């Protein structure tokens, strides 16, 4: 293994179809029109010296090192800013150029410290490289003149130009004394990340990189994505991990385990120590970019809280006892079999994880189906995107987004519904913002003023700030405008969709009761604004819809998904780049865990368990009989547990106690079980109710694949041995074998082969293929051997697109005098989901606790001031947290995140759920807010209980 060095072509690739031929140093080269001379030269293998150019950002032409001579032109133009022309004759190395470059380097080095040997960038410094490249031997100007390098001059006088190192960011440092003012960081922040947090302040010799208004990084607008650190050619912006450890020596390409964007990273290693994560430019989801979580927040893998030995206990009031793997698995197997003996084979089940690999998920559902002998398998996607599966399956025929992420570069109008990409899917947000800065229009449908509504250089054309719970009314009203104003694409509908169903749907939405005016009082969205948004989406060119959990986590989640699909079909925005319906998946492998048959009614590939021919495939291969009855969903399992008919659960990599709604109900269900097996990295909240704890492995410690929101199957590669001893798929296999199965997988690739052999949409997928192609988007079979970046290109998967009526039915969760406010929940950039990982990293500096956002008006009438403790109560329960007063939320709406177990936002949420899929209604809860002086009794008791429950008996 070696360190993967990606070629830096200096300037971005040109997308032109026309080509230009020129000569560089006597070699003829043909490149697309618009390519820079620098890039063309690199393509022939000649690297022109450079400092301010890098191919992640546009050319800038400031360092004057990349000068070339061009026949017939005066002077020595910069090759980065000079586009190629036909017949151009370029020389990159002449006596004059050599002298000029050396002179430039002398000036740079005269104001740069000469501490190369002790510098953190030693071995990875472009300034050092260029000094070598141009043959710098002497600096005629000396090092004693005006400089930014020394804190004091030779006489002990303070040097006013010197600035101390800024170490405020937990992950990287800014050392102004090493800065060469190449502006790469500033441009990366603007062009790649789109935050504009950096600038060059001052002018001439005073020029300095400045975060915000001469602030430190932490208090500036910086979101810590690290694009600047990656762009910096020197040690000015440097990862603290590199300062601490040193330069990496080998790297492995793998996939981030945070959100559904599925960014590719190079894990740069020294031995088995991870030095840093660097986004991989060939990664097709992220194109070389990352966010604060993926790049920096991996410290949880080595956190002291991680449990590395299996543990068991008879009762949840006992302390944990560390035991051998054999004993733990034997204990679990005996208990599970005993429950089945007593209560029947349906009394136990599994929950698969959207954070584990496809292969691991596949094995867990196989455990239920082949070893337990039932279909009691469900997944955390139940609580996030199950309505997407249902809604898109019904209308289009596949349970997945229709586009790849590159598609956004071709969108003209983007509608973001119930998603907060800058926080939840930051890398996609950066790509979206780039497109918006190029002129695409944005419509935001969200109760809260998310950052995208207005952020530097991006302003939504329309923000429909609807009342939580009225999605269906708004989406149907949008369709009403499109149909009644004749904005629909008739030829598309006639050609691709069922015309009769369209007519039925058109009749339904045309009803005046669905008009924006009629629903305004209900939704709170001004009718004119809604009409304008509908017109823009229908007639603004390529219209793309991106949506998130704000759509699905409602009692009518599935209906809204159907409504969204209807909008896309009405306007013909399906089946080509720049359009489509795109669910932004919450977790890294939500798509994959759904694909792998985690649902109780579906075998891998979304095929219903009542299909004999599908069961046949698996029955033959597994040598068992598969039940044709759908099994229990998570809420049903918990209900059954309370009833005493369900007593054993194997829960892999999900913390249902914290993430599932109505915490009290979840805890009652768990407490009623005889054998709860938690397979996780940490003693999570669910583990408080567990009898067996099986330590899990991180994404760094195993091989496998994740499938991201664009259906892209990305490889996860093992970069270090599992600290707990076994990868998660091995643990599941050992549990299966302890229960009498005879599984003998020795590598996840064999599991993928089994998936490919049984599931048509994965038919051509293999590790060998992924190795060759990097990644592939399913369906990948003989019909589409290279995968499918865009779906429904020549027609819908189900045949004809199906319009379905979307009646608005108000949720049963209603505000009233006791609970007059609506609570909606979400997440924040620096934290992820229940926070089990990110809370165990330095990301807590940005978000140390959950806070309640409340409108100034609502705060004032309750006597709540900014930062006050408030009690948040619903019909389900109550909790306390601090208030933050902001007009981001409308009056009548409050908002919080659910990253911290001490807050337990889900104590508040109710057990209402989506009519089709039981996806919980997290996004709407009627609440009251009142001043309080600290945590509630419940929080204190729970804290006490979890401390007690987490005791581990000292080993003898």
């Amino acid at each position, binding site marked *: 293994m070696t360190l993967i060095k990606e070629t830096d072509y200096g300037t971005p690739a040109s997308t032109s179809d026309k080509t230009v031929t020129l000569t560089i140093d006597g070699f003829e080269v043909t490149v697309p029109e618009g390519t820079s001379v620098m890039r063309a030269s690199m393509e022939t293998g000649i690297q022109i010296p450079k400092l301010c150019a890098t191919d992640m950002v546009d050319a800038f032409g400031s360092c004057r090192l990349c000068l070339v001579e061009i026949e017939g032109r005066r002077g020595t133009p910069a090759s980065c800013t000079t586009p190629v022309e036909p017949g151009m004759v370029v020389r990159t190395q002449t006596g004059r150029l050599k002298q000029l470059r050396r002179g430039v380097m002398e000036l740079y080095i005269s104001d740069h410290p000469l501490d190369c040997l002790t510098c953190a960038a030693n071995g990875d410094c472009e300034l050092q490289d260029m000094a070598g490249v141009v043959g710098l031997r002497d600096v005629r100007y000396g090092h004693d003149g005006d400089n930014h390098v020394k804190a004091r001059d030779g006489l002990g006088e303070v040097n006013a130009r010197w600035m101390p190192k800024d170490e405020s960011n937990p992950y990287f440092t800014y050392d102004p004394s090493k800065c060469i003012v190449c502006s790469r960081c500033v441009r990366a922040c603007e062009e790649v990340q789109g935050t504009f947090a950096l600038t060059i302040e001052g002018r001439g010799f005073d020029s300095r990189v400045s975060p915000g208004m001469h602030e430190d990084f932490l208090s*500036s607008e910086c979101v810590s994505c690290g694009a600047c650190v990656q762009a910096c050619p020197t040690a000015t912006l440097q990862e603290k991990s590199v300062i601490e450890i040193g330069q990496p020596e080998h790297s492995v390409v793998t996939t981030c385990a945070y959100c559904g964007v599925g960014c590719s990273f190079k894990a740069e290693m020294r031995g088995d120590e991870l030095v840093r994560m660097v986004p991989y430019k060939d990664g097709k989801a992220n194109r070389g970019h990352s966010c604060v979580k993926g790049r920096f927040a991996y410290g949880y893998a080595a956190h002291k809280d991680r449990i590395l030995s299996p543990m068991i206990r008879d009762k949840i009031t006992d302390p944990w006892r560390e035991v051998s793997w054999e004993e733990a698995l034997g204990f679990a197997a005996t208990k599970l079999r005993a429950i089945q003996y007593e209560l029947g084979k349906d009394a136990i089940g599994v929950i698969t994880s959207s954070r584990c690999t496809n292969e691991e998920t596949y094995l867990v559902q196989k455990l239920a189906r082949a070893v337990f002998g039932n279909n009691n398998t469900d997944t955390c996607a139940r609580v996030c995107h199950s309505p997407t599966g249902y809604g898109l399956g019904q209308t289009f025929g596949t349970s997945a987004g229709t586009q790849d992420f590159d598609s956004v570069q071709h969108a003209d109008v983007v509608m973001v519904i119930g998603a907060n990409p800058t926080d939840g899917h930051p890398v996609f947000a950066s790509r979206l913002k780039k497109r918006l800065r190029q002129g695409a229009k944005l419509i935001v449908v969200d109760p809260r003023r998310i950052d995208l509504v207005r*952020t530097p250089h991006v302003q939504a054309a329309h923000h429909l700030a609807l009342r939580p719970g009225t999605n269906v009314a708004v989406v149907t009203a949008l369709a009403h405008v499109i149909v009644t104003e004749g904005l629909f694409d008739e030829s598309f509908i006639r050609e691709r969709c069922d015309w009769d169903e369209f007519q039925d749907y058109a009749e339904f939405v045309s009803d005046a009761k669905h008009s924006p005016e009629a629903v305004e009082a209900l939704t709170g969205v001004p009718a004119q604004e809604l009409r304008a948004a509908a017109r823009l989406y229908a007639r603004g060119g390529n219209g793309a819809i991106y949506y998130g959990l704000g759509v699905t986590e409602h009692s009518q989640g599935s209906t809204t998904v159907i409504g969204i699909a209807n909008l896309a079909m009405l306007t013909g925005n399906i089946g080509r780049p720049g359009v489509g319906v795109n669910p932004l998946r919450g977790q890294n492998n939500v798509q994959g865990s759904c694909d792998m048959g985690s649902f109780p009614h579906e075998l891998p590939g979304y095929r219903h368990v009542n299909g004999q021919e599908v069961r046949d495939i698996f029955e033959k291969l597994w040598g068992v009989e598969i039940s044709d009855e759908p099994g229990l969903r998570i809420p049903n399992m918990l209900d059954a547990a309370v009833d005493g008919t369900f007593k054993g659960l194997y829960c892999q990599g999900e913390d249902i106690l914290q993430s599932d709604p109505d915490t009290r109900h979840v805890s009652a269900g768990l407490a009623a079980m005889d054998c709860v097996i938690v397979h996780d990295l940490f003693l999570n909240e669910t583990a408080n109710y567990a009898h067996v704890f099986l330590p899990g492995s991180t994404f760094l410690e195993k091989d496998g694949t994740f499938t991201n929101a664009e259906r892209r199957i990305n490889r996860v590669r093992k970069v270090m041995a599992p600290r707990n001893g076994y990868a998660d798929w091995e643990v599941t296999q050992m549990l299966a074998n302890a229960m009498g199965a005879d599984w003998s997988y020795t590598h996840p690739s064999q599991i993928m082969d089994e998936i490919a052999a049984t599931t048509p949409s994965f038919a051509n997928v293999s590790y060998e293929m992924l190795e060759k192609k990097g990644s592939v988007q399913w369906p990948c079979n003989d019909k589409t051997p290279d995968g499918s970046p865009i779906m429904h290109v020549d027609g819908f998967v189900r045949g004809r697109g199906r319009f379905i009526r979307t009646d608005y039915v108000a949720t049963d969760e209603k505000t009233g005098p006791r609970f007059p406010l609506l609570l909606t929940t979400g997440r924040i950039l620096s934290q992820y989901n229940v926070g089990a990982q990110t809370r165990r990293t330095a990301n807590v500096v940005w978000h140390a606790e959950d806070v309640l956002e409340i409108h100034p008006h609502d705060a004032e009438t309750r006597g709540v001031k900014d930062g006050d403790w408030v009690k948040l109560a619903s019909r389900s329960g109550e909790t306390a947290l601090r208030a933050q007063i902001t007009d981001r939320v409308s009056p009548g709406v409050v908002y919080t995140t659910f990253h911290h177990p001490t807050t337990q936002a889900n104590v508040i949420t109710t057990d209402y759920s989506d009519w089709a899929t039981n996806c919980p209604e997290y996004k709407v809860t009627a609440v009251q807010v009142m001043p309080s002086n600290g945590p509630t009794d419940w929080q204190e008791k729970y804290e006490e209980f979890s401390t007690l429950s987490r005791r581990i008996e000292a080993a003898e």
Partner: protein
Amino acid sequence: MSLQLSSRQVAERTQAVVEDLAQLEGPLLPILHEVQKEFGCVPDEALRTIAEALNLSRAEVHGVASFYHDFRKEPAGRHVLKICRAEACQSMGGDGLADGVRAALGIDWHETTPDGRVTLEPVYCLGLCSCAPAAMLDGELHGRLDETAMRELVKETGR
């Protein structure tokens, strides 16, 4: 005007300036000029307000404002005397003249006399090389200066 403005007052008055000029193409520089006219300087709070109003980042506005020396952080004295320190003026004895002024006023470059009478600034070429050494008092150019003429200029600031 009172010297101590609350940040809220600064924000409000800046907001008014921005509203007047925001419809211009490339409104940032005209706004900064107006703000400087309003407050005698460009306070940090004004930059925040401008960034918010124009939908720019704080960094961007700071980058532009700090590029121009004439956008001040603090208000200047009642008069501003700029003395050229570029090559032509140096060759005609400009440095010596400048030293005399600094001594006479008892302040260094970029400083304001304690009575708030005058601020002394260096300038690198006023485009008046043919009449070196040159200086500029409150926007008015003065060329072919010698000690007497310079003394007169300084005296003028006392009025």
